[in-house]
């Protein structure tokens, strides 16, 4: 098993954290994992992306040119990465702010309106966990329980009261996928 994932969007959308939680989930699952961020001033806006590779064998390059799965959260990232998905691969995107939707026909495309779902959740900060829920439903790379394990490691203990909210957001994201 090997899954090469790119998650891309605006800085502040929780792109890097989402990748980190996925990476920690893979650790709980005894998978090999690399997490390679586009680092820099993106925390304050601009585009941010992270490459996460999960594998049951040793990972060579943490830097890739094509991906099995792309999780795309803004137009710039869609423009940049749509053509870098392997044929037969998966594109998951949030339609919020997208004015040129994806056009490829040789990949599986899922539109997940996660931004809209944050309004139902009454909490914009649940955004990346809703997206992660959708990803897990579509590409079952790690079990939800491993993700919860990952969250427990990523979140400082003083924020562990938020674990339930995160689980609800993941469930919400799973429900968004038909």
């Amino acid at each position, binding site marked *: 098993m090997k899954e090469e994932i790119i998650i891309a969007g605006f800085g502040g959308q929780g792109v890097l954290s989402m990748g*980190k939680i996925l990476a920690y989930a893979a650790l709980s699952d005894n998978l090999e994992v690399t997490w390679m961020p586009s680092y820099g001033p993106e925390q304050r806006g601009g585009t941010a992306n992270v490459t996460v590779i999960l594998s049951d064998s040793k990972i060579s390059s943490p830097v890739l040119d094509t991906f099995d799965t792309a999780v795309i959260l803004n137009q710039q990232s869609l423009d940049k990465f749509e053509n870098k998905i392997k044929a037969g691969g998966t594109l998951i995107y949030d339609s919020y702010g997208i004015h040129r939707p994806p056009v490829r026909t040789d990949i599986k495309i899922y539109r997940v309106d996660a931004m809209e779902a944050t309004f139902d959740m009454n909490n914009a900060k649940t955004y990346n966990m809703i997206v992660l829920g959708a990803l897990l439903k579509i590409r079952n790379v790690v079990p939800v329980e491993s993700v919860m394990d990952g969250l427990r490691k990523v979140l400082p203990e003083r924020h562990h009261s938020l674990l339930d909210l995160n689980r609800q957001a993941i469930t919400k994201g799973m429900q968004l996928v038909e």
Partner: protein
Amino acid sequence: MEEVRLMKGNEAIAHAAVRYGVDGYFGYPITPQSEVLETLEALMPWETTGMVVLQAESEVAAINMVYGGAATGKAVMTSSSSPGISLMAEGLSYIAAGELPALVVNVMRGGPGLGTIHPSQADYFQATKGGGHGDYHFIVLAPSTVQEMADFVGLGFDLAFKYRTPAMILADGIVGQMMEKVVLPKPRPRRSDKEIARQCPWAVTGKPDSRKQNILTTLELDSYKMEENNLRYQETYSIIKRDEVRCEECYTDDAEYLMVAFGSMARICLKAIEDARGNGIKVGLVRPITLWPFPTENIERLSRRVKGILVVELNAGQMIEDVRMAAMGRIPVAHFGRLGGIVPNPQEVLDAFKERILK
């Protein structure tokens, strides 16, 4: 079994330093290695092992604190990124001239000048051929995984103390910033003053009645004596060259072609090589782990039976000079690199290999 953790390369260096029993870290923040200092501040080792962690007022101050600490036989280190290492150049030369053990970490970014914060390997010449003035060398270790970031802290100090010479970890923004699994070295206590006195009889720790005064100086106005000093440094370097070369070879047994790359670039090459082998092209990888001393013999040996070598670096062609010297004109040696913080992907490397070597 030791716990498997997930962390950035920079964080692994900080954890490994505390666990090795380092006495002092002196540094100044700079992207992409600021997590080393940040992690040390978060770990607060001064409350556990007694390790000093100090944010100096500048890189110049930091390296001179390392110089002073090393002179007392303490295990001391600093970390920085390319422009910061340039600021330290004078101190590095003095530490080498003083025959002092110390660990310097350079998590390279694109230059020259203030450059960019993105990954680069453009400090190969600076690290392996000098950087500061005078005939000196560092032992230069090039990690390609987060595990090696952790492991090379201990290895670097062990070698530095064994040979009384500074060691450098020459990493890049990729291996500093990426997270992957790591098993940290077992914690061990810092050395006591007695142990330091036994291990470092040369250290300037205050003169007891039992020995003569120790004097450490890099100034020697009698040129005959200064030549003797230089010959002594060179003697040490020749032993290091003989005994401390480290190198990894992958798929070289049946290789018809070679790629030579270090650090994270070697991993990108490995993926390109796996893809090439999927298409029946037999490429092997030589990954120098010590950049100085350079694994000349590995390349010399392989250059007698492969048809061509592609050297892949995040620079305009630096390590290729050492590879060419090892290959001695026997076979074509070409270069592929991206500059200024751009990292090529495996496909670009494979395309370059086909264009420049396979033809």
